[in-house]
């Protein structure tokens, strides 16, 4: 994925710097929050139960699925379902998802970063109205524009290509990326820019040499957030592609479902397989993602 290399960087998020030590009424000498804990555990059960069911079922063979208790783990776990799914061009769909995600996230980051820089550091009616336009984009369900997008993509002879998924994905990622990046950008002290300006640096230099390195955690956060959205996107692939050669993972889950109507364990194995890459990424970049997202949205 786009940010795999950057994920190895130790998470020195400015977000964590900004946050005071966790509190929420659990200072020294406080009673434990019993009701809170109870609620927390109940919700945890609500989250876990479906995940547990998906995993154990994906390890059952078809006979086992029909005969054993659905909530009990299989007596003889099998990986046959995973084998079956992997044989069904899963690698191709995975590669398509990867291309679409990287192809959307990297350009979206670049243009959003430049825009955020101009919005925070610049002024004038053009920049101001552009920032308002992006803000409006957040309030509009952009999916409503899918029909004209379908028209444009077919007219441009891009229907059923990966580029058809990439281009609108870039556009749809821009409002939220600009919002989060400019929220972070405001924390870069003005003095740094002023002193670079006195040294005769251009905005272009300041943007790449000063703002980008300082904003790296925010850029990674926005990158991961967009990557999640594009990777899991369903509507664009459903409408703008058709053939198996351009199929992406979420759509492949849906088509597996048709193909393996009676083989629920295989369908659920494909669900697990499609989620696995994100899970690995999440475990690696958890702190970065969580601290970045919380700071990005709550400022």
């Amino acid at each position, binding site marked *: 994925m786009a940010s795999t290399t950057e994920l190895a960087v130790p998470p020195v998020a400015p977000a964590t710097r900004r946050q005071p030590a966790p509190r929420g009424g659990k200072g020294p000498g406080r009673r434990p929050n019993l009701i809170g804990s109870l609620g927390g555990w109940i919700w945890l059960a609500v989250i876990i139960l479906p995940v547990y069911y998906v995993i154990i079922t994906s390890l059952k063979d078809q006979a086992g699925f029909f005969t054993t208790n*659905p909530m009990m783990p299989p007596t003889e776990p099998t990986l046959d379902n995973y084998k079956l799914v992997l044989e069904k061009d899963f690698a191709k769909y995975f590669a398509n998802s990867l291309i679409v995600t990287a192809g959307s996230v990297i350009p979206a980051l670049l243009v959003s970063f430049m825009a955020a820089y101009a919005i925070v550091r610049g002024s004038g009616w053009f920049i101001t109205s552009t920032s*308002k336009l992006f803000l409006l984009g957040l309030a509009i369900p952009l999916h409503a524009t899918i029909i004209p997008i379908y028209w444009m993509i077919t007219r441009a002879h891009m229907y059923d290509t990966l580029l058809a998924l990439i281009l609108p994905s870039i556009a749809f990622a821009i409002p939220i990326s600009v919002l989060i990046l400019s929220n972070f950008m405001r924390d870069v002290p003005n003095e740094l820019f002023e002193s670079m*300006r006195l040294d005769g640096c251009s905005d272009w230099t300041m943007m790449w040499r000063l703002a980008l390195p300082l904003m790296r955690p925010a850029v990674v956060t926005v990158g991961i957030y967009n990557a*999640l959205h594009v990777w899991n996107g369903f509507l664009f692939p459903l409408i703008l592609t058709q053939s198996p050669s351009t199929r992406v993972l979420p759509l492949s889950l*849906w088509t597996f479902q048709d193909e393996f109507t009676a083989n629920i364990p295989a369908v659920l194995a494909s669900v697990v397989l499609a989620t696995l890459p994100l899970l690995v990424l999440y475990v690696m970049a958890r702190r970065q993602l969580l601290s970045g*997202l919380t700071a990005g*949205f709550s*400022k």
Partner: protein
Amino acid sequence: MASITSTSRRTQSRRSLSKGPSGWLVAPALVFFLVFAVIPLAGVLFLSFTSWDGLGEIRLDGVGSWASVLTDPVTGNAMLVTAKIIVFSFIVQAPISLLLGVFTSGAQKYRAALAVLYFLPLLLSSAAVAIAFKALLDPNFGMGPGLGIPALAQDWLGNSDLVLFVVVFVIAWQFVPFHTLIYQGGVRQIPASLYEAAQIDGAGRVKQFFHVTLPQLKYTMITSSTLMVVGSLAYFDLVFVLTAGGPGYSTRLLPLHMYLTGFKANDMGAASALGVILVVIGLVLALFLQRLGGRNRSASQLEGA
């Protein structure tokens, strides 16, 4: 969203200090956004006055599509279903996210493990979530018979009285973690001194929650609610895979109705009219929520746009 207003004020004062960057830096983002969001937005309005089957020629058709959409009882039903889903999923999600956000912002044992598990649904695609729940809710091979609780072994997705609540539940399952995260960030930014002061005044946990935490989270609530409500107009994927709008029309919400009208019934004109309705609803709801947050902070920004 709430903090955008301060931009213009800050940039204004900065103008006197130094010359800002040129406007062309916003141009690449603007071009993408214009081509794939703003122009299609105008396009959907235009197409709503045409008749088009999606392949052939586009013909101007006056208000024909609008007339058929507005007189079609399915549209009214879809709006009702959408309204129900927005309201119910807000009622379910908002308090859970708020409470979980406050809870998880404190220090608990097993914090790291909890964080991984709580936020797991964030990683799953709606298609994956829908497929998982379809299997889980199966009356013969799902959770119900597995747990041996007869009340759980229902045909959840086939019962038109229940299915809407199932959809609301699955939506909450998938999206509460994201909003929990937003609230968690909001709570962590409340200055600890406010709680210390409250504690000195003898306020207990409940009082602190209502008198410190809640008022301080006002803007977080607006951000989260706006994303929640506008987001509920985009629950398309989840409902499409989970129920495909059925049984009957009981979960055919507006975006799904738009898709089925346009791409299954090949009536792009009517589907565009539905798209326009969606945009208007989204905009009205967002403006309403921003206004709740107070005019001067953010409403004026959206109004001016």
